[in-house]
């Protein structure tokens, strides 16, 4: 369902294309795709370790597919991306109730909520490491920032 990544040749081609369009869309760079099952190298009772792929893509442009968990408002600049549709609203309950394999997405501008039943693709810069949102107190380990998304 979710592409596991470009081949090196494809990536180079795409990167070339991105470089070419850089003058037109300065915020866009080539995005490497990453899937939910590629986020963690090891998941155990004693904690998680990020996968080599996540560590390699830290600070890089990435694209990721998943389901959008409902944000606080229809027009929101951040939301949670999940592997399967979730019945939870992150801001109704605490972040305590979320599974580990989620990604928090910070948009570069507010976008309207996408139907939770549909898959979306998010592109942006991957941030790695624990961070507490000063406004909501929501703690995240992985984030895609400066992001935008579209329905797939």
């Amino acid at each position, binding site marked *: 369902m979710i592409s596991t990544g470009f081949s090196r040749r494809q990536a180079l081609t795409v990167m070339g294309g991105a470089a070419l369009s850089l003058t037109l869309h300065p915020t866009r760079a080539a995005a490497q795709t990453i899937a939910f099952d590629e986020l963690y190298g090891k998941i155990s*009772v*004693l904690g998680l370790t990020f996968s080599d792929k996540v560590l390699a893509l830290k600070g890089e442009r990435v694209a990721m597919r998943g389901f959008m968990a409902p944000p606080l408002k229809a027009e929101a600049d951040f939301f949670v991306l999940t592997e*399967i*549709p979730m019945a939870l609203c992150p801001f109704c*309950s*605490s972040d305590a109730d979320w599974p580990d394999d989620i990604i928090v997405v910070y948009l570069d501008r507010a976008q309207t*909520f996408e139907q*939770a039943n549909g898959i979306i693709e998010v592109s942006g810069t991957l941030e790695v490491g*624990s961070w507490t949102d000063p406004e909501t107190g929501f*703690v995240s380990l992985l984030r895609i920032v400066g992001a935008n998304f579209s329905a797939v």
Partner: protein
Amino acid sequence: MRGLLAILTATTVLATSMTASATTIFPLDRATILTSSPFDVKVEFDGVVSADDVSVTVNGKPAAEALGKDVRFIEREDGVEASAVRIDGVLIAEPGTYTVVAKAGAEEKSVTWEVYGTPETAQAKNVIFLIADGLSVAHRTAARIMSKGMTEGKANGRLNMDDLDRMAFIGTSSTEAVATDSANTMSAYMTGHKTAVNALGVYADRTKDSLDDPKFETLVEALRRQTGKSVGIVTTSELQDATPAALFAHTRRRADKAEINTMIYDLKPEVILGGGSAYFLPQATPGSKRKDDIDHIKLYQDAGYTFATTAGELAAASGSNTGKLLGLFHTGNLDTTLDREFLKKGTVDKFPEQPGLVAMTEAALGQLAKNAEGFVLVVEAANVDKMSHPLDWDRAVVDTIEFDKAVGVAREFAEKNPDTLIVVTGDHTHGVSIIGTVDDEKEGMDMREKVGTYADAGFPNYVDENGDGYPDRVDVSRRLFLAANNGPDHYETFRPKLDGPFVPAIQDENKKYIANEAYKDVPGAVLVEGNIPRDGDTGVHAVDDVVLQATGPGSERFKGYMEQSDVYRVIAETLALGVKQTQ
């Protein structure tokens, strides 16, 4: 104009008289309180009053004199335009009836508490309290039929819980509503006080702070105060979840899980087995859900606990003689029995070596039985509830079978140790019933027409060839049909969810839950329109009574209808918790 003034005056008078009845006193009226167990008293006046106008009396004497504690007047509570009185850490040694009257000008409120003592001698040395979260009659019946089978209307075998000697119907309602949750219900069992939805070990006051509400003693605190008994908690949920937390915690908000984990550590139960390791890890560790740098696993290890993270390590730890055991088998909730043992779905790929409730109960009893003073063990089958919410009845029922096997382990222990009281119960019920079967062999594609009711239901064809007590598969051709009486919009597939736990509904852009379309294309699926408010994500708890069963010394105290808070009194009397048993 004159007429209007007259009406205004009349309204004001009415408002004043209503205000007078709005004062609240905690503990609430009709509270039952164990002698010498500490609790906080709080009076919440409806408005701002003057200290000079306030009086609080207990059986006619000023409260400070009667209770021997400082009476603190708060003119304006934090975030509330009203006054309050607090008397913290009260304990009453003398059994009897205590009437509290609080006055402030025209405001007056009176409550009466019953303070009870216990027999001088304990009737039982040990208590094993087994609770299946959300256990309803349908779960029991389905577990019996699925596990044992049925021929010509008679069960082919009996569950372990079918042969307990005594029973009672338990009323589960909260202090604020007929409806209820796992926090206030388990808290009532474990403290003897009813409280509000989401609250544990406290009455729900009106201030925002979830950790400042008036407290009362938990069972574990009473055991520490009066006895040298060991304490064990075993659960398939996070250890900080409402049910296990109720043994230890004082918070208005069950979601305070990091704080709850600290409260558990403060009481250091000798055996702690379950999920929720995320709340033991310091915040710097990825996967941690703490907001501080405390490493709780290290704290327990330093305190002499044997530590296990897998079923294998748990088995190895059973040989240790420390009498102290910490087993954490998941960062969150453990997977269901159906996923763990049969389907390998859920998070079993990430946590492949989770022990089940039976292995955990055996390990706990092995350690706790080392204490000559006895023990109290609480065992929770959490997934009966966690799978009933999303209407995943196969998972809920298979976990009920596992729960019954844990009841069997407890009964075996009690056969060798007859000074053991066993209590088997749920904390609240779910709106579910078995209405017949679904028979794939019936003609056509329309699944609804394959539902067998009355004589057409026949008997299901589950098979347990290996005799492990579980059906070899749940997706047999003629299976039990369990139906919820409430829920969000969802697709009924009439089939077990073999790919992972059911997610019936998901939220749309208007914050309303809509049917999860992942199940729309299952052949024969029908859209079932919800009947609860559209902001409800899953099925809800029922208000129906819980059936409690018990056996062993003290169990004769269970009978008829009892409030959930009365169950605590039975445990307190059976263990003589009104009496100091340590030097």
